[in-house]
């Protein structure tokens, strides 16, 4: 999908920095996300990805820099504030309670109610029905909405989390390493859900350390290394090989490859 420079991006991150004590976790990071597009945030461990997510989901506040939604400055003071702004975060641990049923998890924190006063109760029937429907919309038939979320497979759990975010009117979906703990086939399935969410008009921030997962679905790529930005590229501006090289630290990888060749191991060049 070609970028339309006329409308303001859904989310713009401008020169955001965050320090924890004397540790610089993020330094002047900038990128944008547009509705109906996927921006991938790439980086190895320790790059500052989780700090960035926490800032975008309202858990932390940036020390410097601003956030803009639809072109207007915005302050995300709490997870609730972020949710209200339409930013839904799917954490690595999925923010799901393993022992609770799927429908209970689906509506956790946003339970539908019926009745009023002391008779105000959690509308379980509605919750179960909606959960099943939303999951079907994503193309999954959860066998039994009563079963604890912990008994679902990794891919199924991701789908519940994404379906939840989509249902609650998220305009921007942030996915924290959704494919990292999954096998190849399951990861493929999750990537398909990401595309589905994108096609429904959401903006997606896809955080990962795997450029081969990121490249097929991404429209924009932000590379982080040790809290600093290595570049913010549109898809047309970079190839997957270049992405990998930048992430691994280009020159360092070449040197490592030469060393390995000398020892007698085939290196990838």
């Amino acid at each position, binding site marked *: 999908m070609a970028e339309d420079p006329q409308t303001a991006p859904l989310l713009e991150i401008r020169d955001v920095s965050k320090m924890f004590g004397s540790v610089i976790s993020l330094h002047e990071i900038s990128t944008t996300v547009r509705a109906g597009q996927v921006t991938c945030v790439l980086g190895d461990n320790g790059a500052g990805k989780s700090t960035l997510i926490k800032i975008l989901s309202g858990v932390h506040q940036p020390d410097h820099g601003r956030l803009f939604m639809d072109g207007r400055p915005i302050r995300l003071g709490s997870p609730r504030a972020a949710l209200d702004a339409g930013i839904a975060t799917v954490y690595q641990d999925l923010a799901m309670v393993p022992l*609770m049923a799927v429908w209970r998890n689906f509506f956790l924190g946003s339970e539908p109610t019926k009745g009023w006063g002391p008779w105000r109760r959690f509308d379980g029937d509605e919750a179960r029905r909606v959960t099943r429907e939303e999951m079907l919309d994503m193309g999954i038939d959860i066998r039994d909405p009563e*079963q604890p979320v912990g008994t679902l497979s990794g891919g199924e759990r991701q789908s519940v989390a994404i379906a939840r975010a989509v249902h609650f009117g998220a305009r921007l979906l942030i996915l924290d390493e959704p494919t990292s703990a999954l096998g190849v086939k399951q990861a493929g*399935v999750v990537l398909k859900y990401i595309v589905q969410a994108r096609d429904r008009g959401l903006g997606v921030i896809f955080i990962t350390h795997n450029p081969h997962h990121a490249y097929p679905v991404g429209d924009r790529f932000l590379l982080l290394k040790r809290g600093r930005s290595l570049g913010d590229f549109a898809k047309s501006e970079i190839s997957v090989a270049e992405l990998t090289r930048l992430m691994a630290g280009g020159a360092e990888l070449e040197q490592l490859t030469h060393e390995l060749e000398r020892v007698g191991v085939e290196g990838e060049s």
Partner: protein
Amino acid sequence: MSGIAVAGDERLARVGLFRRLLVKPELGSLIGAVVIFVLFASLSDVFRSKEGVANWLDPASTLGIMAVAVALLMIGGHFDLSAGVQVATAGITSGILTTYYGMNTWLALAVSLALVLGVGFLNGYLVMRTGLPSFIITLGMFLMLQGLNLGVTKLVTNTVQVNNFDKVSGYGALHAVLASTFTIAGTPFQIAILWWILVTIAGSYLLLKTRFGNWIFAVGGDRSASTNVGVPVRRTTITLFMLTSLAAWFIGNTQIVRLTSIQAQTGIGQELIYIVAAVIGGCLLTGGYGSAIGASLGALIFGMTSQGIVYAGWDADWFKFFLGAMLLLAVLANQFVRRYAETSRR
């Protein structure tokens, strides 16, 4: 997109009604209760007589009211070791304020309620604020209240008890509400049994049918996940501690009304029994799972066992051994049933 959607209906059929029932946390305790009943009923005909039933339902009811509150707290992921001594604090406060300081009975009850609710609030607040395990915080509170209960009682009364509560104004009404009996087929039953049933229903409704109940499961199951989706963790936790205190207030005043007096050392050791009843009822020690009905069944098992041993004529010196053995069996049976049910689900 149909990769996951394969064969949805065929898998649904397997998760039949039977398996669904087995997974319910209270089923294990129900089976345990039936087994214990059958055991003692076969050993003693008085146990299964109307008088016997009325007798063992009585300790089960007062234990059950506390067990439901403690179970809710445990599902929420916390322990309250001060629950037992709060019972004494509530009764002692009501007793001293009226019989030594002449306070109006209803006001004294209100003050006693405010006091234990304050203790509950403090427990919850400290747990949330410090991040220390609730086991430690409430253990400290337990020791402090134990000392206060005795110290204050001695200071005011010069003895270790507060008595003559039956002389206060309004005692008749209090007795009718908290300590009277109702008759079924000629046998008197304590009214606490009705209160117990009411509390169990209310507790179960709160847990399973309200938003707050959903939050209880969440906070106990995964605290950080709950925070991240916007569940009010602090408010939920403090409320749960205060609910335990509310139950303690009810039981403490029931006791002083029923016995017309209360000992300073009442309740010491009971806090562990509440936890045992909750665990028999299916509550996990780690939180996030359990049942109010199960906790009541756990209390029932405890009541039947402690009185059943007497009815069966077993040697008194071995009482604690039998009690412990019965409880272990009940918990293990519960565990076994649940494991079986869980594996069959996959």
